């Protein structure tokens, strides 16, 4: 059954478009998705996730679980960044700046992985607590801030006061476009409810899967163009990038099950939030917060290693773990 779900995940339109994009880059096709089109698809998908979640929450109502979820997401964000940073500096002797940057990328949330975990559940028709996607900014900001602070503590340059302060980092995380669109969409969907939103759903709901698929073509093109950078990557760090998502998934799935989420909700929490490695917002944050780090390294790990592994193995794995834990705990 696991194999079947992995196959289904592999042979789904988003994965295949991702593969097409990588292949087009590898054969040096002149195929390009205009930057503005990619950016717009990204904005649209985040908004749509928020709206869908908001409409669903409007139907089911809010309860204590949302607050508990937010706290759990924040703690996991800190924990994963701390664990990653420690592993990278102690075990693999990576310098503080790069360790902080990589740990931040992997602790932060990958909106693409979030989108794909939702399309996966949609396709296998598994329901989930609609608010889980909205925990994004809690885990994301917690992980980024923790990783940056850890790295700065060890860097002399932290004294030149050139980078942003902790408060600035928090504000940056909470005003980031991903946060604004997800939470904004959620609030709008919640206020209007299914009736008020009905006439907008042909855009935000019906087209969601198709746009997510087509968007993966763009992501694949970008990932394919960076394949070469993998060769330069230290083997240990590569191992970290292959293994870390799995550890993230196991830790997060356990905690999510303990706070009472359904298997669908656990899946999104474990892989959509914790397992993915950010390659859209984290690089920008890290570029100004830890400029000494090599931006190509963390980007290649997140985009070329973690994303494909997560798409093919991580998402079905998270789902099976969630189903298993639901029985076991």
């Amino acid at each position, binding site marked *: 059954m696991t194999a079947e779900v992995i196959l289904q995940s592999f042979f789904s339109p988003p994965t295949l478009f991702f593969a097409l994009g990588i292949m087009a880059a590898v054969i040096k096709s002149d195929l390009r998705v205009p930057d503005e089109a990619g950016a717009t698809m990204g904005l649209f998908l985040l908004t749509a996730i928020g709206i869908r979640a908001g409409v669903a929450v409007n139907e089911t109502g809010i309860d204590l679980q949302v607050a508990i979820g937010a706290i759990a997401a924040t703690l996991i964000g800190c924990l994963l960044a701390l664990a990653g940073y420690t592993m990278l500096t102690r075990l693999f002797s990576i310098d503080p700046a790069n360790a902080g940057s990589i740990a931040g990328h992997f602790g932060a949330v990958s909106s693409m992985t979030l989108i794909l975990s939702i399309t996966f559940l949609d396709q296998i028709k598994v329901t989930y607590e609609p608010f889980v996607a909205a925990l994004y900014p809690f885990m994301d900001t917690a992980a980024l801030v923790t990783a940056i602070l850890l790295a700065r503590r060890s860097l002399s340059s932290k004294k030149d006061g*050139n980078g942003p302060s902790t408060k600035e980092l928090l504000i940056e995380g909470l005003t980031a476009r991903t946060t604004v669109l997800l939470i904004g969409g959620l609030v709008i969907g919640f206020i209007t409810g299914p009736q008020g939103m009905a006439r907008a759903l042909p855009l935000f709901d019906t087209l969601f899967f198709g746009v997510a698929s087509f968007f993966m073509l*763009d992501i694949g093109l970008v990932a394919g163009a960076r394949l070469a950078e993998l060769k330069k990557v230290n083997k240990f760090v590569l191992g970290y990038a292959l293994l870390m998502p799995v550890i993230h998934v196991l830790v997060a799935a356990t905690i999510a099950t303990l706070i009472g989420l359904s298997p669908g909700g656990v899946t999104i929490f474990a892989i959509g939030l914790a397992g993915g490695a950010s*390659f859209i917002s984290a*690089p920008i944050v890290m570029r100004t917060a830890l400029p000494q780090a090599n931006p190509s390294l963390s980007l290649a790990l997140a985009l070329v290693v973690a994303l494909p592994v997560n798409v093919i193995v991580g998402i079905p794995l998270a789902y099976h773990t969630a189903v298993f834990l639901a029985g076991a705990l």
Partner: protein
Amino acid sequence: MAEAKKVVIITEAVIEEKVIQLLNTHEVKGYTVYRSLTGKGERGLRSGLGGLLNFSENVCIEIIVSDELKALAIMEAVYHKFLADKFAGIAYLEDIRVIRPEKF
């Protein structure tokens, strides 16, 4: 027509705003920004990443000032604060002639 200096800074798009803040502390009277450049230098190829982020793009910021010393001070400040060891970028100076020198 009078002599003036044009300082040109080509650097990473992510620090555009910070460079402009620095220019403001030097009380420049104006500047012009060209966006979405690509380029190559010591720190490798810098070019867009699909629509995902502007993080590997370059910008070009041009500042015209009438006073050569001020021009040099701006270049030095930008160079030491941003380019020396942190961000990819270059800075250079050109001699130009302008119509209303008091504007610059």
